[in-house]
């Protein structure tokens, strides 16, 4: 299935509807959004069920990383619906066991899974070894795993891969002195000062990244919310000036809506733009890919409707997720917390803020001024999906602040956003052979030894002789920190 780059941002073309078929029913939706968001706006939040415990799952990362939004589109299985643009006439089907046995059986399986002992799935049916083939052949298919649609069920079989999808043009971008992955403020500033032919790659269509798209939308909002939050206003100014500075360096080639998708050679990466996959070589790789959302470990951390800030930016600014009149719970602190809050409020959502960090008095004052509902001094205990496509967050009162309902405080919402410090993106550097270590103070895997240095850019030699430089959030720094060249 083609993964088209998504239009940016969604316009109000409500008159211009596309009709798709979802599990046999016609659904009318906006054509300029991703399938996952079109279905969300239509009231479909559960896009799949997890294959072991049958847990309902919905769009989570919104960047094609996770399993939660996979569906069968026009007969092709495992299509990432969060990255697939709606086209009129698309035939979309859920692809988990429910698709084979129907909803009642799915429900029964989910109930049964509650009594599965820990380790059931990887311990049972493995002994004796002589019978494992029998188990694999007979018992596994009973769950529906590995089955593809057939004509008898009225679903089209897998089409042959169209020959046109094979990429033959411009498959090699050539060699660059520098490849900068990530065109957020960090990547932009790095690219501005680098010498030699430089390639700048970002999965956002605009130079500046997803926060810039969110900040620009907020700046265009007539209510003047941005002016009430000095940290957001200065972030906008900083990223805009970094984006402007890019024009000053003519040696930089910017590729938007493109992703570095593999560290495949000692001195090269694979870059995907739409359906085109290309090789690109480097002498120096600047890894400014930012961070991934950290949801955290708590009961119900897989509940649909639970997002990190980065996913929310993409859902709102790229796909135009409709939140008007919805209730949102935001938990956390920092730049992303206030940016998400302001963005959701400007889109007409009702907010319930749970601030877990201290030292943000000016933001709290602004939120009080805006009559946003605020809670402080509580600890997140659990999030779960409840009826009516709602999530319920439960908090324990902490310290002296008592919860409104006795020992616990429950907040109900259509979506919950957890704004923790992100974890540095690390996969491609690691594939290239970088020496990484887990440093909790930096949020995740970062180059070994970087925590002992104050440097904003940390260099390492790769086994193939090329060099890699980590910077910004990918080095575990906060988004408010600035690269100094």
């Amino acid at each position, binding site marked *: 299935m083609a993964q088209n780059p998504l239009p940016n941002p969604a316009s109000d073309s409500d008159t211009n509807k596309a009709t798709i078929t979802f599990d046999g029913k016609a659904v009318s939706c906006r054509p300029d959004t991703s399938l996952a968001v079109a279905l969300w706006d239509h009231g479909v939040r559960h896009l799949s069920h997890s294959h072991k415990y049958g847990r309902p799952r919905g769009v989570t990362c919104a960047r094609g990383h*996770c399993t939660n939004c996979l569906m069968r589109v026009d007969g092709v299985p495992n299509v990432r619906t969060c990255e697939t643009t709606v086209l009129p006439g698309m035939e979309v089907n859920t692809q988990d066991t429910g698709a084979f046995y129907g909803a009642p059986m799915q429900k029964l399986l989910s109930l049964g899974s509650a009594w599965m002992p820990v380790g059931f799935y990887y311990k049972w049916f493995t002994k004796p070894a002589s019978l494992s083939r029998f188990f694999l052949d007979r018992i596994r298919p009973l769950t529906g795993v590995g089955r593809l649609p057939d004509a008898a069920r009225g679903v089209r079989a897998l089409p042959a891969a169209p020959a046109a999808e094979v990429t033959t043009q411009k498959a090699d971008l050539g060699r660059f002195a520098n490849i900068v992955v990530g065109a957020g403020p960090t990547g932009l500033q790095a690219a501005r000062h680098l010498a030699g032919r430089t390639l700048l790659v970002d999965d956002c269509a605009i130079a500046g990244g997803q926060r810039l798209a969110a900040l620009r939308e907020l700046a265009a909002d007539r209510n003047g919310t941005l002016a009430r939050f000095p940290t957001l206003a200065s972030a906008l100014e900083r990223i805009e000036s970094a984006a402007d500075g890019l024009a000053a360096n003519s040696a930089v080639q910017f590729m938007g809506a493109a992703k570095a998708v593999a560290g495949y050679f000692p001195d090269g990466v694979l870059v995907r733009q739409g359906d085109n996959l290309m090789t690109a070589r480097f002498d120096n790789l600047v890894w400014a890919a930012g961070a991934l959302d950290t949801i955290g470990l708590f009961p119900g951390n897989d509940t649909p409707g639970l997002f990190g800030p980065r996913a929310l930016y993409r859902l709102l600014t790229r796909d135009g997720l409709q939140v008007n009149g919805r209730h949102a719970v935001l938990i956390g602190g920092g730049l992303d917390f206030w940016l998400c809050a302001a963005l959701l409020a400007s889109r007409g959502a009702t907010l319930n803020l749970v601030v877990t960090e201290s030292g943000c008095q000016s933001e709290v004052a602004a939120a009080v001024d805006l009559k946003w509902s605020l809670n402080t001094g509580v600890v997140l205990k659990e999030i779960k999906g409840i009826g009516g496509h709602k999530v319920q967050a439960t908090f324990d009162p902490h310290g002296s602040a008592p919860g409104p309902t006795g020992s616990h405080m429950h907040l109900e919402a259509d979506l919950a956003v957890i704004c923790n410090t992100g974890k540095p993106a690390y996969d491609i550097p690691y594939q*290239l052979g970088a020496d990484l270590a887990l440093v909790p103070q930096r949020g995740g895997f970062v180059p070994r030894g970087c925590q002992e240095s104050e440097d904003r850019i940390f260099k390492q030699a790769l086994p193939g002789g090329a060099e890699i430089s980590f910077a910004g959030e990918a080095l575990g720094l906060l988004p408010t920190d600035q690269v100094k060249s």
Partner: protein
Amino acid sequence: MSARSAANRIFLCRCEDVTLQEFHQAYKEGFTEMESLKRYTGLGTGFCQGKGCLSEAAGELAELRGLQPSEIRLTNIRPPAEPLTFAQLAGLDLAAGDTDSGNQEDGA
């Protein structure tokens, strides 16, 4: 496991449905390295290839073993970093020997 504790499942790896309880159970059974834990529980072998869970799991393991987090050895992570189609890969123009990168140390 009772229905009550099932409601309290904490998901470490969402792709392969590995809970924190399963991870701890596997550790108790003697799997004390990230690589063997990955193979036993399926953690980090799903669609996201560990983007969602490896740093969390490594942090848990450091705590269980009483080690510094930086002492935990990572599992191997091989390219690509996101699923690609064979059609896309077939379109690449690769030279001979263009198939290897650095992260192959123990041949696992």
